[in-house]
């Protein structure tokens, strides 16, 4: 008889811990043939709010971390993903319903995407900042700063690479994030949370929820302590409604765009999550 394998319990990732949903709910994830795979947690409004609190608490330190430090931490995420490449490949194969060969290429791209973003954190200030030659005896400079807590509704057409593509942009810029994972294929996102938990990413910087997009995304869109929301994974018919709710506190809204996740992102992925701060000081003796 073959050995009975030990299955993993897939839970939420909030504030560095792995709780079940406070609602006690879970939902069934199946493979492309309808076979049972797992029962991940089905997050509730309360879970979403807890995740926002965790992200807000983590924001001061993560945004104040040196760019070099953030860079090293994101590179560390790539290192740990590489060491679990096979597990991710199996997860993506299952999640994206593709063969192992193609899944492997997607995992390679996902790992490389972390490296790409890791290299950005200490370049953005030079590229996007400025000293401004004002007409007076003042030193005046502008610098990019993270917008704050970002809600990321992960894309539905990619279980891992699409998520990492958008998550990396938010992290390298110093934001903290609440992710709502791909609804039908949430498992690679949870596996990623295990990597994040062991990669020196401080607790609360990334929080990952699994569950129903239609149920949870609106709570994030209307949450008054979320500063920006990426609507990537929101169904087309719901985008307008959620974007409207996001105006209650003038969230920065990133509309879904269909794209080939294997392509290198543009800098707008990062600039859309940055604010420009300008500081003045008199010059004199």
């Amino acid at each position, binding site marked *: 008889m073959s050995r009975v394998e030990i299955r993993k319990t897939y839970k939420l990732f909030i504030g560095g811990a792995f709780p079940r949903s406070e609602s006690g709910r879970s939902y069934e994830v199946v493979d492309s043939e309808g076979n049972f795979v797992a029962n991940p947690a089905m997050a509730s409004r309360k879970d979403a709010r807890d995740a926002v609190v965790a992200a807000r608490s983590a924001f*001061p330190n993560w945004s*104040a971390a040196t760019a070099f430090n953030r860079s090293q931490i994101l590179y560390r995420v790539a290192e740990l993903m590489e060491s679990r490449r096979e597990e991710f490949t199996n997860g993506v194969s299952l999640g994206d319903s593709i063969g192992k060969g193609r899944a492997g290429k997607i995992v390679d791209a996902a790992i490389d995407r972390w490296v790409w973003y890791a290299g950005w954190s200490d370049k953005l200030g030079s*590229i*996007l900042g*400025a000293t*401004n*030659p*004002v*007409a*007076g005896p*003042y030193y*005046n400079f*502008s610098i990019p700063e993270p*917008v*704050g807590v970002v809600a990321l509704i992960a894309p539905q057409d990619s279980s891992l690479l699409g998520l990492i593509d958008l998550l990396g942009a938010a992290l390298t810029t110093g934001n903290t994030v609440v992710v709502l994972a791909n609804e039908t294929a949430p498992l690679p996102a949870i596996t990623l949370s295990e990597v994040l938990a062991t990669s020196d990413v401080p607790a609360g910087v990334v929080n990952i929820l699994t569950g129903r997009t239609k149920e949870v995304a609106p709570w994030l869109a209307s949450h*008054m302590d979320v*500063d920006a929301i990426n609507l990537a994974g929101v169904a087309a018919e719901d985008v*307008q409604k959620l*974007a*409207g709710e996001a*105006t*209650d*506190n*003038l969230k*920065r809204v990133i509309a879904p*765009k269909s794209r080939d996740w294997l392509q290198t992102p*543009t800098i*707008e992925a990062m600039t859309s999550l940055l*604010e*420009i*701060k*300008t*500081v*003045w*000081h*008199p010059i004199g003796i």
Partner: protein
Amino acid sequence: MSPFEYAPAPESRAIVDIASSYGLFINGEFINGAGTAYKTINPATEEVLSEIAEGSSADIDLAVKAARRAYAKVWSKMPAAERGKYLYRIARIMQERAREFAVLETLNNGKPIRESRDIDVPLAAAHFFYHAGWADKLEHAGLGSAPKPHGVVGQIIPWNFPLLMLSWKVAPALATGNTVVLKPAETTPLTALLFADVCRQAGLPPGVVNIVTGAGATGAALVSHPDVNKIAFTGSTKVGKAIAREIVGTKKSVTLELGGKGANIVFDDAPMDETIEGIVNGIFFNQGHVCCAGSRLLIQENVHEEVLERLRHRMSQLRVGDPMDKNTDVGAINSAAQLGRITELATAGDNEGAQRWSTPCDLPTKGFWYAPTIFTGVTQAHRIAREEIFGPVLSVLTFRTPAEAIEKANNTPYGLSAGVWTDKGSRLLWTAARLRAGVVWGNTFNRFDPTSPFGGYKESGWGREGGRHGLAAYLKQGEQA
């Protein structure tokens, strides 16, 4: 007469020639609006200055069509360097007619002539001069190798800096190759209408700038017009949110420059003379009608008494009255409605238990006036600590540690501006880095420059105006391009 009293020094209004009525400036000429005319007044005297057309949605449609034609046939085809030359012309004409603009601004807005003459008008001209030079260098702005304009831009501006806000909007829009439909504020249309004459003198092609006066309904018609590609709005957070919601689901872009409740933080080592001047400038400049005003003063507890004593003394020297007098520091409140709002919030301050102190000054009997006022004993829960008063009213709070100062400063949905007063460089930069605000003034306050990006975090808005970063508001970004 004591040594510190001044003889009246009124600026002459002979230089301005105000027509008895004005139409709408559409396609390079003034036409009669379809709506009912309304009166615009001098808020310092309540004298009627002129009758102003109220633009209807049909008028907005005419203006958008004119702007579209001008964009398609002229402005988008013109070499960028030529476009820039029109902006240089406009800047020069504004400088040549600076006195006229300053007098007209003060008459219609109520701000002291010293401010309109030395700040509003020179900065407005400087904005055109600065952006003129960008027109043929946009590929170097870090926004892509061939950045493209949006097309027709609808712009809605407030009454607190009527001409300066016009220039913040129109100059970058034109430099980047857009054409404009501008709606000035209801109560302060006159300098915008004089700007129409500048466009005529500059030979600006018809339809590149269209000016449609009116109130909220006129602005709403502009926002909802289907052929407007981008909306730029400066005004209240309430209206800004309504605009943001209105354009959801359309292809329109939007930038918003909204309200604020700026913290002005005074540490115990602050250079005291400069700090007192900075506090006064932060809240009493332009009667406090400033979105980035330092309206919450946070004083470190051990210097609280000293700062307040010196502040009261300095405030007692402020000359409140005739805005046309060159010695006036604080002019008239812009409208009866705004005076009502200031009065309501100040009364809430009394009722919620804060202590009011106002400068002893005689206020004119006609017009709208509010004596410079501070409230002490303010807590974070008080309305006067949370809501934008937009008047000469300062709320004073205290703190013990730098961390507490940051906590209190950031405890607001707004995030436009902040000030820090300290002699210690490392403390200043530490504080500036933690303030969630788009502009931080260190040992100064309320400084503006065309090269310096301005705009808010959080509910203070979307986007920046001024500097290289401000160009992004008028050029298509990323996948829009």
